[in-house]
């Protein structure tokens, strides 16, 4: 079965992101496919390259990146939600004339259309709300 996930919560602020991560691991372990994980609202902060939690806490952005590398996951961060909230890739940093970018490797910024496409193409869309 092909899943897509919609993640609405930021790491540390809300448990939704951690729940989504555990779900993704469990689905992959059972041999299911994941078409896309879409980060929306405050969920865009899952794609932060700068998040630096203490060593004894879960580093969710790093875990997403590692999971994506292992399973070739499509991690898409809503571009409109992200730029408002200060999550930029190199292109957007250039466009908005900002001195730095902070989107983590393994994530990409794209439009809300990627959420609609994911819902259409996948057997199930699971929302992790906050």
């Amino acid at each position: 079965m092909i899943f897509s996930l919609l993640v609405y919560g930021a790491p540390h602020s809300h448990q939704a992101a951690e729940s989504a991560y555990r779900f993704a691991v469990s689905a992959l372990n059972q041999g299911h496919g994941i078409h896309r994980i879409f980060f929306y609202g405050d969920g865009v902060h899952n794609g932060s390259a700068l998040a630096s939690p203490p060593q004894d806490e879960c580093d969710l952005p790093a875990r997403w990146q590692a999971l994506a590398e292992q399973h070739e996951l499509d991690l898409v961060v809503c571009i409109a939600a992200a730029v408002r909230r200060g999550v930029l890739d190199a292109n957007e940093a250039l466009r908005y004339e900002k001195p730095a970018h902070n989107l983590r490797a393994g994530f990409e910024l794209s439009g809300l259309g990627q959420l609609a496409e994911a819902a259409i193409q996948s057997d199930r869309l699971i929302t992790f709300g906050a």
Partner: protein
Amino acid sequence: MTLHTLNRPPSDRALLTDCLAALLADDTLLLLEDGVYCALESLSLPTGVRCVALAADVEARGIGSRLPAGIEVVDDAGFVELCCRNDRVLSWF
């Protein structure tokens, strides 16, 4: 058949009420995160609706021994299986 998930405590009464009102026979209600506290209420579920709570969240909050009969505990794999067995997943938050 719909899998409904709920992640807010029962003090969010409006959410719980709307969620319960949307359940139909053969639907499943999965409680997760702070939603597992809803399992401690006497929920009036329609006939034929199954109610389950996510194991990691039940254990985190120390409510395993307080769960009433009729609430099953499922692990993360069980959550994934429920998503497969139902036609759609609707998250209440």
